[in-house]
């Protein structure tokens, strides 16, 4: 009898052990998550879900983040897989994915061919330093994926590089952006017709070379044109006549970009712009309110003069004023200055240049969240006006240590020799880029003759429906460096002096995305995933203590429970 019981107990133990093992195996494949995180990091945003409902064919995602790499990247890999599973569940299994190791081949040439192919497709590699027994070695990884939908493919960069941000934060920010970046890629692949956008010309705006890089990037997602206003309403708007004298007016372009004009807009051109806004067109204004001649600066001095563009009243009516001043910021990029004495060989040295502020986005707005620092050159400040109809969101500001100088002002290269005094830079966070949203009122309301106002052909509108525009008080934000002798253009945001690439391109792309996107998808960018990092100081001092607690405590607990149970059973059966 006793032996039989023993056999039964043994069988029971084996079976229970098997159940535990099998449950573990099953849970590896089938999982359901209850999102108990405070930030709901594992719940897709409504805009994403709506987007996925419109997916009617297979989206194939090939993720190249597979292999052996540090824990941070493993986390990025696993988070990507979890996100893909979430997307898959919401897209009726229309999402298929595969994780591939691009470094799998043992043949060096083959590996390099794969790297080259991925790079040509737009996937950006990252160099990792790996600790080995004999020292350190470099490893190339591709924290990126290729997304294919209906025969079109588009890269999805999982890791978003940010200058001056600690690696843990970069990884965390990248994980935060995963949902938006993937959803955004799907949206771009799923658009049957690219939205049309245009760069205005005719007022000294930046030429095709100076905006070449951003136009190239925008062309992946938009039909980009150049348009001269020519004081003609038809330049920005289509007018259809229904035959009874009633005209339907609609913008030709989803958005227009006014990139660093340097001469005045005529009233008729302003009217064209105003009616474009009133009819729902979006505008990205990049305006230099102060004119500075950099060529003169190379001779030592230049002047900052008011750049009369005749747009003040228009912008004022929409809710902002760009001040005719120049920002000086202690957080700035640098310029090369010849420090050699006259007559000697030139000796170029990099010096901070307070007229080139670097703006690190600090708000949670989806346009700028987690962006790299954005470089300005001779920027002005923006005042927002009390206009209840318009919501104003400050997108970019100066640093804590800034000030302004009013124009006209003399700008001298010799200023690099004066060490900026922190006490004199007392204006903190001066706005340099503002988003305006709401119902805009026409600057021409109550200013037109009855004939124009009542003209069916002109179809004047006094106010807009819900609309948006972005005003940036520096045209150079969108200007890439051009080597005029060869026509070569550098990536937007690349600084020849510091050899850094700033976040200007992503900022402009996000601006256009935000203006053109009616789905609200960009709001997904503002989601916050809290980085719960360990306190490095505590880790250093209390490491051993916690290691002992974590290893010894469970064993002790089991022993204590065992002893207690033993005595309980002995008491019970002794009776």
């Amino acid at each position, binding site marked *: 009898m006793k032996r039989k019981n023993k056999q039964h107990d043994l069988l029971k133990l084996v079976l229970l052990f098997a159940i535990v093992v*099998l449950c573990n195996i099953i849970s590896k494949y089938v999982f359901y998550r209850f999102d108990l995180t405070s930030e709901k990091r594992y719940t897709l945003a409504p805009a994403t879900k709506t987007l996925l409902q419109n997916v009617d064919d297979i989206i194939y995602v090939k993720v190249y983040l597979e292999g052996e790499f540090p824990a941070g990247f493993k986390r990025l890999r696993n988070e990507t897989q979890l996100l893909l599973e979430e997307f898959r569940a919401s897209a009726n299994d229309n999402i298929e994915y595969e994780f591939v190791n691009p470094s799998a081949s043992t043949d060096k040439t083959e590996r390099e*061919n794969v790297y080259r192919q991925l790079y040509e497709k737009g996937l950006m590699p990252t160099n990792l330093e790996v600790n080995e027994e004999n020292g350190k070695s470099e490893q190339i990884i591709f924290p990126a994926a290729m997304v294919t939908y*209906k025969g079109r493919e588009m890269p999805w960069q999982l890791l978003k590089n940010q200058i001056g941000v600690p690696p843990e934060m970069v990884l965390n920010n990248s994980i935060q952006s995963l949902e938006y970046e993937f959803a955004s890629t799907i949206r771009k692949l799923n658009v049957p017709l690219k939205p049309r956008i245009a760069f205005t010309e005719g007022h000294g705006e930046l030429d095709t070379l100076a905006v070449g890089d951003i136009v190239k990037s925008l062309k992946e997602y938009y039909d980009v044109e150049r348009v001269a206003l020519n004081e003609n309403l038809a330049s920005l708007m289509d007018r259809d006549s229904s035959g009874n004298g009633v005209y339907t007016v609609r913008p030709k372009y989803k958005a227009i970009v006014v990139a660093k004009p340097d001469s005045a807009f005529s009233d008729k051109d302003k009217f064209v712009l105003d009616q474009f806004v009133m009819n729902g067109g979006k505008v990205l204004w990049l305006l230099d309110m102060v004119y500075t001649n950099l060529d003169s600066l190379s001779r030592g001095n230049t002047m900052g003069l008011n750049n009369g563009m005749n747009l003040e009243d228009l912008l004022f009516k929409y809710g902002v004023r760009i001040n005719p001043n120049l920002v000086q910021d202690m957080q700035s990029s640098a310029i090369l200055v010849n420090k050699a004495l006259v007559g000697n060989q030139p000796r170029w040295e990099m010096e901070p240049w307070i007229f080139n502020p670097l703006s690190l986005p600090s708000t949670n707005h989806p346009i700028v969240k987690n962006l790299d620092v954005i470089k300005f050159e001779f920027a002005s400040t923006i005042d927002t006006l009390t206009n209840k109809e318009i919501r104003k969101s400050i997108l970019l500001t100066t640093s804590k240590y800034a000030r302004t100088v009013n124009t006209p002002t003399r700008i001298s290269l010799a200023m690099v020799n004066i060490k900026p005094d922190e006490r004199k830079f007392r204006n903190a966070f001066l706005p340099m880029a503002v988003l305006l949203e709401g119902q805009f009122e026409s600057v021409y309301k109550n200013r037109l003759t009855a004939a124009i106002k009542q003209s069916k052909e002109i179809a004047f509108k006094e106010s807009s429906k819900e609309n948006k525009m972005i005003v940036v008080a520096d045209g150079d934000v969108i200007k890439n460096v051009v080597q005029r002798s060869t026509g070569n253009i550098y990536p937007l945001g690349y600084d020849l002096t510091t050899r850094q690439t700033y976040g200007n391109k992503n900022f402009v792309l996000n601006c256009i995305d935000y203006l053109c996107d009616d789905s609200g998808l960009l709001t997904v960018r503002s989601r916050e995933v809290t980085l719960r990092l360990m306190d490095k100081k505590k880790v250093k001092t209390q490491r051993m203590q916690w290691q002992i607690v974590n290893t010894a405590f469970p064993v002790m607990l089991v022993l204590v429970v065992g002893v207690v149970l033993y005595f309980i059973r002995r008491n019970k059966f002794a009776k």
Partner: protein
Amino acid sequence: MMSKKNILIFVATFLLGLVATWLIITKSSKSTIRKELRDFAVADTASITKIFLADKKNNSVLLEKINGIWMVNSKYYARMDIMNTLLTTVKSLEVLNPVGKKAQPNIIKTLAAHSIKVEIYQNDKLTKLYYVGGETADQEGTYMLLADPETGENSTMPFAMFIPGFNGYLTTRYLTIEDDWRDRAVFKYLPNNIRSVKVQFAEDAEQSFEVKNDGNNSFSVVELQTQKPVANFDTIAVKQYLSYFQNIHYEALANNFAKKDSVLAAPHYAIISVTDNKNSVNKIKLFKMTAEKGRVNVYGEPLKYDPDRLYALLNDGKEFAVIQYFVFGKLMPEINYFKKK
């Protein structure tokens, strides 16, 4: 007798075991697409013993490894360059992307009409069966469809396949024409395996010669017209000459050339005969090729014969091919070549 509780636990374990097994078999954590649908590649190409390729125009080719040598339709040696390319392709195939649901019917229809059937045998057992179609719109991928090697039943999910690191489509690697696969070697002899080489010129008969390998590093050269041995010949030149016969290829077969008969009716240019140690003779007959109209020499005078190419009758006159002076020229030196300078 087992208690009810134990039976319950036993049943639960059994069911969980079934679920776990099914999940392990069907799911891979690295991909959501079932392996059996996308598993085109054969990792171990060394174990491949046979590859059969057939297209819809009734062209087919059987590549077989016989005694470690790849043969074409059991008749000819296979060209190792394209054989290696095929084996690399078979090994490295990866999914570029699955074909979208909406495009699937069209692609399957196209594959049914125009595709190449590929059968791969490992250790003489059919282990892989798939169909190779045309290229994707961007020419980066090639449509392929797997089939069950045992039942022959086609998969329902076609894929665009590619080779990582390679830009281009792969259909052209699956050749179904026998001639494309044949090794183009005309002469493939190690110098020590050659007993004699006889070169007979039709026009300059006095230049005809025979080189003999008498064994033990002993050679002789004979003037064929006079049948006199060449005295004091250069042994190094003879050795050099015999070494040329290791890798001599024709450019292309021209069996279906319309003017073949008129070429063969004309006087030949030369005959090269190689006799090996087993007394097997490999004889080729060379004919000059008429130059294309309008071709001139450096002085601007019209050329009668093509300065680059010739015709050759190979394999006991069974085959007709185009060859190049660049390759065959060194096999037909003047007799002075062997004489000591």
